[in-house]
């Protein structure tokens, strides 16, 4: 029987409907679809897909279980390597990771590995997830700073090894970017809550409202705990430094998304935190963060939502699916365009922005062709809200508070492959060591650090 070249389509909410709500856009596979899709896998020898997965999930094995209808075994196989499959199944940049390497991709469409991962994770969650056996308590205590994917992965792996783990989070709730950044329609908070519950059931304790560097110092943690993991992410918003950036109506992506996601401003006035959105919204940037902002703006009632990006579509760093979804929902893309100045009204609120057209020149350090302004191509665009989503850097709060931590010129904490920092017994991983990256890379770093911490504790 010849293999099917095309993958199973995933059901989605109709674009016209979904821009009126915050419910999740893709609806997931049915059992039949999952089995059909799983059957397309060629079970390659030395499977290339696995090389594309930063946490090394045994992809062909879990797919085989799905094809056989043994969903419990499939999820167990995934969870050996990945504590948050319902999250990664949704947000991994599959096309450049596991699916990007898939052999089937050369013959037709790659196996929908992410969707299959999501399917079994959702199925298990509906039944109530099983807690794997933990090793017997070692009596060692580890402090984990931050509660994003790097920290949660590190914490769960350490807990399984029998160590006592306490997670310290500055915000009121755990989850990091998964909580305050990625919107409900892409990653329902209920899913994050249940994945968090799983981590807690492993014995991990979360202490919210604790800003390390202020509420407690790193030194204090070192005194009380046998090791420390730092996973504080890259939460510092970047600005362009152009004229008028401090006008009212201009948000950083972080402010906009935190108001909406963490503080639930989309349910104002039932929830107290406001967010104001105008009729014409421009989001600067074309990464996942920018797509989330532009799509959120539509759901909050913006009449027009624009993406302004200085390079072309090809260079846009967002996941393909996000760009497709944004376009379906009516987001207008203005590529090769850069905002150079914001213009305010008499109330100091933004009313327009001056842009300039760009063209692509020589490749830069990142290998992407760098944009150069086209002289005399300036034009003015009326906007009443601007969201700046041009990237995030590591927040310097903790590294400033403890000078012993060596940092790079980008502000990231210096650490080796396994997360060892310049201070013995202090490890770091995720966006705080790499700069803004991806959920799965953060998880991979958390996993490697957990292993290194476990070894460190054995020898300590």
């Amino acid at each position, binding site marked *: 029987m010849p293999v099917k070249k095309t993958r199973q389509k995933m059901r989605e909410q109709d674009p016209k409907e979904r821009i009126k709500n915050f419910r999740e856009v893709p609806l997931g596979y049915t059992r039949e679809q999952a089995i059909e899709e799983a059957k397309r896998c060629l079970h390659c020898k030395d499977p290339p897909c696995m090389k594309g997965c930063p946490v090394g999930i045994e992809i062909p094995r879990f797919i085989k279980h799905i094809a056989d209808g043994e969903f419990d075994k499939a999820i167990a196989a995934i969870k050996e390597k990945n504590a948050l499959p319902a999250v990664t199944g949704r947000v991994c940049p599959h096309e450049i990771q596991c699916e990007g390497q898939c052999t089937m991709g050369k013959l037709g469409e790659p196996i929908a590995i992410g969707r299959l991962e999501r399917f079994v994770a959702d199925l298990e969650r509906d039944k109530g997830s099983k807690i794997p056996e933990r090793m017997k308590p070692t009596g060692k205590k580890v402090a984990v700073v931050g509660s994003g994917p790097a920290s949660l992965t590190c914490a769960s792996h350490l807990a399984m090894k029998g160590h006592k783990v306490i997670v310290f989070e500055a915000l009121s709730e755990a989850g990091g970017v998964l909580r305050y950044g990625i919107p409900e329609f892409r990653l329902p908070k209920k899913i994050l809550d249940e994945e968090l519950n799983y981590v807690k059931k492993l014995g991990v304790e979360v202490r919210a409202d604790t*800003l390390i560097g202020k509420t407690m110092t790193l030194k204090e943690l070192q005194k009380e705990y046998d090791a420390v993991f730092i996973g504080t992410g890259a939460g510092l918003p970047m600005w362009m430094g152009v004229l008028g950036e401090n006008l009212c109506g201009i948000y950083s992506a972080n402010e906009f998304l935190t108001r909406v996601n963490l503080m639930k401003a989309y349910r104002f006035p039932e929830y107290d935190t406001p967010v104001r959105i105008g009729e014409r919204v421009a989001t600067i940037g074309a990464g996942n963060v920018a797509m989330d902002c532009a799509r959120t703006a539509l759901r909050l009632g913006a009449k027009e939502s624009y993406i302004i990006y200085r390079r072309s579509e090809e260079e846009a760093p967002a996941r393909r699916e996000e760009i497709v979804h944004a376009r379906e929902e009516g987001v207008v893309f203005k590529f090769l365009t850069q905002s150079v100045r914001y213009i305010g009204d008499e109330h100091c609120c933004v009313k327009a922005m001056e842009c300039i057209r760009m063209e692509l020149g020589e490749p830069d350090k990142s290998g992407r062709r760098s944009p150069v302004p086209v002289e005399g191509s300036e034009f003015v665009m009326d906007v009443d809200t601007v969201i700046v989503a041009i990237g995030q850097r590591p927040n310097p709060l903790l590294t400033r508070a403890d000078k012993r931590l060596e940092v790079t010129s980008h502000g990231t904490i210096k650490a080796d492959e396994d997360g060892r920092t310049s201070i013995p017994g202090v490890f770091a991983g995720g966006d705080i060591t790499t700069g803004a990256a991806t959920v799965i890379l953060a998880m991979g770093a958390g996993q490697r650090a957990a292993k290194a911490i476990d070894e460190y504790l054995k020898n300590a």
Partner: protein
Amino acid sequence: MYKIIRKEDLSPVVKLLEVSAPLIADKAQPGQFVILRLDEEGERIPLTIADFDREKGTITVIFLEVGKTTTQLGKMVEGDKILNLIGPLGNPSEMEDFGTVVCIGGGVGVAPLYPIARALKESGNTVISIIGARCKDLLILEDEMREVSDELYITTDDGSVGHHGFVSDILKRLIEEGRIIDRVIAIGPLIMMKVVVGVTKPYDIKTIVSLNPIMVDGTGMCGSCRVIVGGEVRFACVDGPEFDGHLVDFDNLMKRNTRFLEEEAKSVEEYKRRCR
């Protein structure tokens, strides 16, 4: 959850709460603040740590009821619990023996000023304090301020007590009388701080102000609190809240603080409707 262990009404609209928060009390320094959220639906609001007791493990906040959250907080009583409380945030006030320092507090700004004035006194400074309010009823912490000051002046907008006029009038008089002033610290409404800065600028007297932009996280990740200081964008929650007043763009901040006026009014309306 953080338990309220003492409540005091300083005036019908100015309330004091002492809250159990041992970790924060242990680290708190004059000039720092906390961010709290009352319940699941609540907004995060910053309040200055007006006092702290490391032994008891408590911090004190003093606030003016201006909108939904502060009104709701004002209704809470001893034994009630606050859902989220994070701190101490921001940088502590710079503390050393400067010589003579004039401490100026307007309205509820006297609350954050008090621990700073006390610490300045303890550091050996001569402390001249000027505290003002709209009227007698709104004047707070008079006795406490008197205790830590070498001289205390009082002003009210309506003349119901003390000098009839503004805190800046007294400051101007002191300067004109030729008093040597090494530093001024002003905390209060933006317009008051702006006026004070205008008074000291021609004489080049170092003037520290404590800014109160709209905040969300208070940890430096959102930029809601951004202010322009010396032409540069700074985040008040991590770079401040105190700044050199002569460099602050007050006009921009005043505008930014009215960003959500409509929503704030709606919030109060909704709150009143629900509480009936």
